[in-house]
């Protein structure tokens, strides 16, 4: 058990991340300030949920690029409805509506994937184009800034709040608890429930899963609707954190999120992947993105550096995975 850990992708990621932390920290001590750590977490709140979504789908043997579209659709539609209705009820309502919308859009994905047995990548490519097209054509295209008060208050609530020596108020937005909740919930779901295990089984070997008595259709419907719901919730959190609902937000973040998850040791072939790893992968990506100024990298070079670091990160893990796959218990005795 103990020495096994040293062969996991998680371990290699932790090594890579610590190295990165040390390099940045040595460049700029501010990096290790609580303030900065909190900011890293803050930037991870919404992506954190997306990472969970991408992980679930990848483990089930699929690949989903539609979650940002679903999130944008849910958040903007919800805020439109609510501001039309002059809503000023409790925060739970937008979350429920957003989640519900996401759930329905997820079902649409599931229909094409589970019933028509179409390749997941194509389906989600199609639906994300469809969803965002519909959103911006028929629902609305200009930002909404006068959010319901409950959402504004939600965005203003902070935990672990304190003022540091430079007079900056440091704190974590309350929404971090939602993400944390979802992460814990999904971890438990994946490890301790039958549906969770069946997702792994199905991802590992769909044919065998069916032979053992799992229902592929049910599993896929669950996966895509559940992921849709999570995306919807993520969308609502994004809007309220930004105090403004912009229908073109979030789009285009899908590939980087998937990259982060795969970085975290999740195999595109399905069946393998842990939340722990996925979050580490995300941490790596976010750290890279949010430390370029601290490292004093001029703005013109930043995109280049991001690209290079992604390649290095994925390269290192790929090589490591190759190694572990190569080693196998000996036939010789």
């Amino acid at each position, binding site marked *: 058990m103990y020495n096994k850990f040293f062969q996991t992708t998680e371990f290699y990621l932790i090594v890579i991340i610590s190295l990165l932390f040390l390099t940045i920290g040595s460049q700029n001590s501010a990096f290790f300030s609580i303030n900065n750590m909190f900011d890293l977490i803050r930037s991870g709140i919404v992506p954190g949920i997306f990472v969970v979504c991408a992980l679930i789908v990848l483990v089930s043997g699929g690949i989903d690029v539609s979650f940002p579209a679903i999130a944008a659709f849910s958040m903007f539609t919800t805020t439109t409805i609510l501001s039309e209705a002059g809503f000023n009820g409790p925060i739970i309502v937008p979350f429920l509506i957003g989640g519900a919308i996401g759930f329905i859009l997820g079902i649409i994905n599931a229909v094409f994937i589970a019933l*028509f047995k179409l390749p997941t990548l194509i*389906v989600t490519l199609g639906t994300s184009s469809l969803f965002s097209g519909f959103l911006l054509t028929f629902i609305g295209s200009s930002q909404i800034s006068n959010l319901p008060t409950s959402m504004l208050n939600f965005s203003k609530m902070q935990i672990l709040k304190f003022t540091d020596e430079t007079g900056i108020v440091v704190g974590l937005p309350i929404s971090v608890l939602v993400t944390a909740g979802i992460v814990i919930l999904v971890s438990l779901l994946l490890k301790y429930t039958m549906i969770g295990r069946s997702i792994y089984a199905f991802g590992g070997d769909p044919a065998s899963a069916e032979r053992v008595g799992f229902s592929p259709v049910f599993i896929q419907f669950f996966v895509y609707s559940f992921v849709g719901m999570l995306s919807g919730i993520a969308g609502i959190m994004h809007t309220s954190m930004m105090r403004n609902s912009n229908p073109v937000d979030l789009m285009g973040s899908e590939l980087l999120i998937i990259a982060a998850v795969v970085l975290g040791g999740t195999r595109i072939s399905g069946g393998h992947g842990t939340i722990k790893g996925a979050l580490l992968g995300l941490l790596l990506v976010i750290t890279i993105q949010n430390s370029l100024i601290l490292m004093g990298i001029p703005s013109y070079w930043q995109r280049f550096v991001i690209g290079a670091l992604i390649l290095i990160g994925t390269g290192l893990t790929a090589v490591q995975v190759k190694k572990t796959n190569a080693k196998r218990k000996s036939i010789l005795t």
Partner: protein
Amino acid sequence: MLNIPKPNPGPLEPGQRKQLILPILNKDGNLTRLFFIMMFVFILMGSISPSTFLSLDSFISMAYQFPVFGILSIAMMITMVSGGIDLSIVSIANLTSILAAGIMVKFLPPDASLMTSILIIAGAVACSVIMGLLCGLVNGIAVSLIGIPPILVTLGTMQLFMGIAIVITKGQAIVGLPMLFSDIGNGSLGIIPFPLIMFIICIILAYILLNKRAFGLKLQLVGTNPVASKYSGISNSVVLLKTYAFSGLFASIAGLLIIASTNSAKADFGTSYILQTILVAVMGGVNVKGGFGKISGVVMAVLTLQFLSTGLNALHVGNFFKDFIWGIALLLVMVINEVSNRIKEKKLVKQN
């Protein structure tokens, strides 16, 4: 060397005969369907706004539009046939176009004679094409030798190449290219615009590459079943290296068209093409799992999207509506193919 008594095939029942030919029918069936969809879109758009859509001008205008993403789609297609994907094509196109434009602007004196300018332009073109190959090789190495999933590799290089382009240009466009070059780019043979000619050339190239060369065969075999290809003595890594190199090459050709048509080169031109090309390839019947893809299908898909886009522009509908329609079109094509194949197989079992 062998002389074995050849067992006689024995009579086959008609049912079985059909069954044996079925797969072919299917493949073509999908293409035929795509053809009808293309025609449908064309006629639909034509009948909605005949005056604007069905005019020579609008055809010429289309002929200036689709070559660039058409060529990029070919680049995307061949990587998908190999079972991978290339998200970096647009970045490559821009990086190479910046290189070419840079060379022309730097080394071409305004008062240069026709001869010298042609030479320098040729040189610039050569450089950018070589650059395209190199960028592709970078992808190929990362995919085949290091073993990083293509989607991650090309996601990284997409950033990397664009990053380089930004560093070189400080983000600004390179302008002031020799008139000669953009004249070619916007010129036409008779009424056939130059970009369209380039597109046709690329189609022919790609067709030869895919269907007439040993490489093309190997590429499709590797895409179909990399294990079997390994057991057949095909060197998968060499094939993949070439595949991504060619993808880079086509991307750089698209890059040159971009310079010609915009008379400038910029780090972020055409970023919206990436998803479009995947859409085109998939719609054109390229198998995402790899192994299969017909140039004719891709061409039809390119035209279909162009008809849609131009037709919808003529209606002054918002561009978001296009995304919406494209999404629907894509899913529709897939569902129709799937369903009709299922029906065929059902029929078959009954016949037995």
